[in-house]
């Protein structure tokens, strides 16, 4: 098994796991990672690394302003808003 740390990853993802869950999910994710380990045995010399399976480049849009949502539309799904702003819990750095 790899150095996979389920507790750390859960913390980064802001997911609270019970010790039982950590145990169970940790071993499941560990198994998945070991499948992926197998990919390392494939010969990829001469293969250009890519993040895409599709050889598409330079997808851009012209710098043109389009209509935005109204403030009402933008806030419609917000659990709470005030003065046109989305309300979130107090931010403390």
């Amino acid at each position: 098994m790899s150095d996979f740390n389920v507790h750390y990853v859960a913390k980064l993802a802001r997911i609270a796991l019970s010790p039982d869950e950590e145990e169970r999910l940790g071993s499941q994710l560990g198994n998945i990672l070991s499948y992926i380990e197998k990919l390392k045995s494939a010969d990829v010399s001469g293969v250009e690394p890519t993040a895409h399976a599709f050889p598409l480049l330079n997808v851009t849009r012209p710098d043109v302003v389009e209509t935005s949502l109204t403030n009402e539309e933008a806030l419609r799904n917000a659990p709470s808003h005030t003065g046109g702003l989305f309300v979130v819990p107090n931010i403390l750095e």
Partner: protein
Amino acid sequence: MEYEAVIGLETHVQLKTRSKMWCGCANQFGAPPNTHVCPVCLGLPGVLPVVNDEALRLTALTGLMLNSKISAHAKFDRKNYFYPDSAKNYQITQYDRPSTEGGWFEFEYDGAGSLDGLARVKITRAHLEEDVGKNVHFDRFSGVDFNRAGVPLLEIVSEPDLTSSAMAYEYLTSLTAALVREGVSDCDMEKGMVRCDVNVSVRPKGSQKLGAKVEIKNMNTFSGVRRALDYEIPRQMAVVAAGGAIPQETRRWDELAGITETMRSKEDAHDYRYFPEPDLMPFVPVDEWMNSVRSRLVEMPLALKKRLIREYGIPAGDAEVLTNDWPLADYFERAVRGAKNSKGVANWVINNLRARLVQRGCGLEDMRFPISGIGELVELVDSGRVSSKIAQEVFEQMFERGESPAAIVEHKGLSQVSDVGAIEEFCREVIVGNPKSAEDFRAGKPAALNFLKGQVMKLSKGKANPGMAGAVLERLLRG
């Protein structure tokens, strides 16, 4: 032991595009909250970002400006973190394949680390990313405005080549002036268009090893950067000199207290888990595209200043004024064409034309007198045909009526009187009318001559050649 500071800057500037980085919402400051937003910049599920071509162009333009290598294959990555100003829970940026790499920026600076009044700072990279929303804090909750979210942001990273707060300040001032000139960004600090992260460490003077790096984040004024460094550098030096160690950490500048304080230590630093952005395709600039970007590159402020001094022989101070006011510099260059006295033209453009434009609240485009007018006026003064006092009057008329100076002198009869006979007549009249002053001068008070000369100018309605008037008066009084 003596210590030295090592400073590197990460400068973020908002690019001057009409629309945002990934969507067509307006890139505009000052609108009511959450009115320039759409599903893309609000980070709603299922949306797809599409790169703004102009943002890529401005990034490449910056690369050319900074003598950088423009990447033949740039890509975007996700930087993952949770914070309310970023609704997607990641920021799209460029991690390992930025749009530009390397380069340098040269600016005027006189001090340690400069040569002949110039300093050169190496550039690590300039990469493209997106700005985040703005938080507003209330007593018991916070509010978020996403108008700024998705505005194209260019991060220009310098090498740790800066050695003092003053040098950092000059770098920032000159860099942003160049970016404004090239049309990359308006760099309006009042509107938060420029923000800066400062990396600073100290080490024994002459040492090659870098000390532990302290990052001061989110600086939004250049004077703040200077003040923060003026606090932080001596603080670090004192710790090290006392045998202590500086921990690698992030600090915050408290503007009111005038101190930096620990924000977070590197141990609990964020793990951003960068990975390639699956929603965006790589960008490979083709020659035609690069050439059209290259054709937008204009002369940088420092190059302009050097050329003005070299080509026209004008004083550095005048060249500086013109460099800071590009339309005026352009006007000067057109006005000086064919003129004999380029220093005189610069002087008139800066001290008279500019002052008058400010006073009247109008622009160069409102000037109706011929472009050669100021050169002709200077020539009229230099050849003694009008006095410099009358020249002011002629300029007024040029400004108001849009006529050439020759035409104004002609029909207003403003030609300077350089005829000895005519001047003698004025002088005799003045001496007769001011016996006391004449007596004072004869009794050895040279100041009295200036008074009499003034009277001659007054009597001649400013048309007498002042040099000749002085000489004639002196001759008559001594004679």
